[in-house]
């Protein structure tokens, strides 16, 4: 019952106009932050791995390049997802979320997430970390759910158009 009330409370917040606007700003900030991290990735990864090299001398040599090759495309795809999410939120702010453009954007997000799942499938063989299979499963499930959601959204847009064009 408490959880139900919490969910209801969240939905009430999500219904407010300021919420999508705030979320859009947060996405812009994330995109800026993500771009900076992506540009500085070789240095950040170098510092991070050299810190761990103290404990394991082979860590840097074995994992620096594979990590970089996994994280770079992941970062770029992540920025793509944020860009599409921002586009969806812009339409939500304008109070017209049920448009064909948003269906396209959701389908793009599904494709991007599937790409991330593919990247982490490759990473399963080159990075031996417990987080890689977890990310692989999470992105795989997210890709499936997003594609189903995209189809549902497409149907909703179709119904809305039919309703709008019924005179």
């Amino acid at each position, binding site marked *: 019952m408490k959880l139900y009330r919490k969910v209801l409370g969240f939905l009430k917040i999500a219904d407010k106009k300021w919420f999508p606007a705030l979320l859009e700003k947060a996405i812009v900030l994330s995109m800026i932050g993500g771009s900076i991290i992506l540009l500085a990735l070789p240095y950040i990864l170098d510092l991070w791995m050299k810190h761990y090299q103290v404990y394991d001398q082979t860590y840097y040599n074995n994992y620096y390049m594979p990590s970089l090759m996994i994280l770079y495309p992941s970062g770029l795809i992540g920025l793509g997802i944020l860009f599409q999410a921002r586009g969806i939120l812009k339409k939500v702010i304008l109070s017209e979320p049920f448009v064909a453009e948003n269906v396209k954007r959701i389908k793009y997000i599904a494709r991007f997430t599937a790409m991330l799942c593919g990247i982490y499938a490759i990473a399963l063989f080159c990075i031996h970390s417990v987080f890689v299979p977890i990310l692989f499963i999470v992105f795989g499930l997210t890709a499936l759910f997003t594609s189903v959601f995209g189809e549902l959204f497409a149907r909703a847009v179709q119904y809305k*158009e*039919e309703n709008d*064009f*019924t*005179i």
Partner: protein
Amino acid sequence: MPIIVNLDVMMAKRKMSLNELALRVGITLANLSILKNSKAKAVRFSTLDAICKALDCQPGEILEYIEEDDPRAKLIIKE
């Protein structure tokens, strides 16, 4: 869709403007334009009833079925 709305023909016959028809039927000018340009996906019986009453005509005089290879059908799709 190979069904066209001959609203403009009937309006010309009755010498009625789009504004006047919109007022008589009780729908917005934008919706009437959608109907006139055959962009509508469906027409409510109540709307059809009001249009027929306003224009003093039968539904068959407003709605017309055309073949898909009819040049008018291509015009609708292009628009």
